């Protein structure tokens, strides 16, 4: 375990309407076994004692699964490590004397709340349009009534692993949510349970996505690179196929 010192340039903004700016802090001694968020905790403890409001940031599980954390570190959402959420990024990946620029997940559709916190509720609004199978509780058939090939189940799970963190949107120059939406559409389109509402779902979720101000996919793959769960861009291709098929061939309302 080593000790390093960093210079932190952190985006500070008191609220959605106020003007924000970068503020520079010295990290003080940081052990390399700490996680990135623990490094921020240490800074915040110091700020509180000095009477300054600590840096607001979202986090909860600190295990890389809830999707609550995330900031842009030196231009990269969730920082430099591949397939790693910010909470699972450890300080041993940084060098003594490094300067880190820490910003929120900026995007047209995500309003800033405070400091590093943004409003990702548009994701929930998209899911509400059709990111589900319309079955009520009870009266469902036996779980083994429809066999599902291992490969299909695994592929569906690959897509269903999305944690809804929003890094894909922050990484995209167009602020597109296609990776997030593609992951949900793929998860359900691959499974037999998702078939009855397949077309309706694609149309409704895409419509909502556009309405909420998310941009279009420019095929630059920034989202895939930023995604902590390795959600593949092939899900966007599937989303496009599903949408086209639904728009041109669907006989559903």
């Amino acid at each position, binding site marked *: 375990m080593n000790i390093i010192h960093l210079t932190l340039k952190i985006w500070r903004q008191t609220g959605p309407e106020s003007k924000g700016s970068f503020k520079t802090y010295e990290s003080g001694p940081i*052990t390399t076994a700490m996680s990135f968020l623990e490094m921020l905790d240490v800074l915040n403890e110091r700020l509180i004692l000095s009477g300054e*409001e600590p840096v607001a940031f979202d986090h909860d599980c600190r295990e890389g699964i809830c999707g609550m954390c995330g900031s842009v570190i030196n231009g990269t959402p969730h920082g430099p490590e591949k397939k790693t959420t910010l909470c699972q990024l450890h300080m041993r990946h940084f060098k003594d004397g490094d300067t880190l620029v820490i910003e929120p997940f900026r995007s047209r559709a995500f309003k800033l709340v405070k400091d590093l916190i943004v409003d990702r509720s548009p994701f929930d609004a998209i899911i509400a349009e059709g990111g589900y199978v319309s079955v009520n509780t009870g009266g469902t058939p036996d779980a083994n009534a429809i066999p599902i090939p291992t490969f299909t189940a695994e592929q569906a799970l690959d897509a269903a692993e999305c944690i809804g963190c929003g890094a894909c949107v922050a990484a995209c120059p167009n602020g597109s949510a296609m990776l997030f939406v593609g992951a949900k559409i793929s998860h359900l389109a691959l499974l037999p349970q998702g078939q009855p509402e397949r077309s309706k779902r694609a149309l409704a979720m895409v419509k909502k996505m556009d309405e909420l101000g998310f941009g279009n996919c420019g095929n630059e793959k920034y989202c895939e690179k930023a995604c902590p769960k390795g959600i593949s861009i092939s899900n966007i291709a599937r989303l496009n196929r599903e949408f086209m098929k639904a728009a041109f061939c669907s006989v559903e309302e």
Partner: protein
Amino acid sequence: MQLDHRIPSGPLTEKWDRFRFETKLINPANKRKFEIIVVGAGLAGASASATLGELGYNVKTFCIQDSPRRGHSIAAQGGINAAKNCQNDGDSIWRLFYDTIKGGDFRAREANVYRLAQISNQIIDQCVAQGVPFAREYGGLLANRSFGGAQVSRTFYARGQTGQQLLLGAYSAMMRQVKTGKVTLHPRSEMMDLVVINGQARGIVTRNLITGAIDSHAADAVVLATGGYGNAYYLSTNAMASNVTATWRAYKRGAAFANPCFVQIHPTCIPVHGTYQSKLTLMSESLRNDGRVWVPTRSGDKRPPTEIPEAERDYYLEKKYPSFGNLVPRDVASRNAKEQCDQGKGVGDTGLAVYLDFADAINRLGEAAIRQKYGNLFDMYEKITGQDPVKEPMTIYPAVHYTMGGLWVDYHLMSTVPGLFVLGEANFSDHGANRLGASALMQGLADGYFVLPATISSHFAKSALVPITTSHPAFTEAIDTTKGRIQRLLSINGKRTPDDFHRELGLLLWDHCGMARNEAGLKLALDRLSELREKFWHNLKVTGSGADLNQTLERAGRVADFIEFAEVMILDALSRQESCGCHFREESQTAEHEAKRIDDTYSHVSAWQYQGEDQTPTLHKEPLVFENIQLSQRSYK
């Protein structure tokens, strides 16, 4: 206070059917006249909200996170149990019932646990229909894995993220109701108080975590699904926002708190690295299938593990428990690790860790086979510690993981406050003194999808509820109390942060009300606790104001509640002078130093009733009656 469990009469296997048959129903057209508040959107809260919405009730759902998809349930890894007997290995509803009662060391109600086992199969059907991608066999049918405490393979899973997939299923079902308008979401809202009018739970007071606004909400019933209180120990495997606030405030409004001292400590977590550590990460206990636990025989031996010869290693679990070896239950493994470290044989920088060594398994089966089995876990370990468990043994240490205690509820899942229902980890109901792996997810979903929707209608059918609005004085009083408390926290302006106090509380509980407890230690902890409370209210520092997003203030409020709650936890541990399940009282052990249960005196649920600020709470006992199974002492020798 009367503890009426309201268990239906009749044979165990018929109770739930009988209840549903005899219960009064609400006409579908009338359901829309009822408002229900659900606090919490983890598995229990989301599944309840979805189902209540489908049935036609008007539901308001609250959670702390920015989205209901992030509730702490999302972190569950291993799986969910059900008695489907897919493997034809002799499983049945009765066996799942028996294993759960026995696993809980005979401190849970037969009727509740039997119902849980009955419902378990329907849960899997429900989740599959929602599109939860469970693991499958090559033929396309559902796969199972084995878990501790059972000799059958009955655990359904989705890689190492079963909780995530189940929660996303429940969340999506709930979002469908949001779309229909039956469920209204209130994310980033924290429940601050319960409002009780004419003895009925009729609303809550919340704080909007973005604007700081204190709001009130009236309803015909309130459902708490706010999870467990493991974070009382500061370090635990729980998510950072997990808290006792909602249940604690309900307790202060009259809901009895049951078995608060029953806390599960998981043996295989990544050890603590330093004082700045914010949480502990669980490593699946499946690792103990191939890993061997050891420490150096000589205390204070600081050589790296590879330099310690075989003869100087103590495989203490294999030695002490020859038949179960490294696979002894969670509590036994945890206690033994602590014992070794207490003797100075702990390893790593802090001396608070033991080795979990895969070298033998790798020699026997090859590195590839071991990587295939545990690759994910090894990667996770390496990501956090920077060490490769193939090259050197893992280090592990126990950590607080799950709380069996919670608000007391009857068979209907209703607390001692009529109209207040409690689901999931927040209640005490099904796991007795110890929870088996993969049964918390089962319980949360059973409560939310199936039990509450049936029992709440019987409550509405029977109660004459007068219309109430938030202009009722009880709401004004609760709002004032909440505001006063926030003001108090903000105005102390002392010199210590909320986390600093939280760490101190955590250590105190860990040392004296953790894996092993004794009277002297518990009494000492009580004294220290009141000093800590004093210090907290005189020397706390909270920056900012109550009028916007203020995470320091949020934490301060939760820590204040943990400090108050800890007292009841310790009192409960003191009063239960037996060892049972996870609660090991050093005074109550066998000649071989194993836990000794005392059924004659302690076969009961302990339910604590609030008596006012600075008053000792009253202990009520609900006797546990076992009509269908024989009590036995656990033995793993």
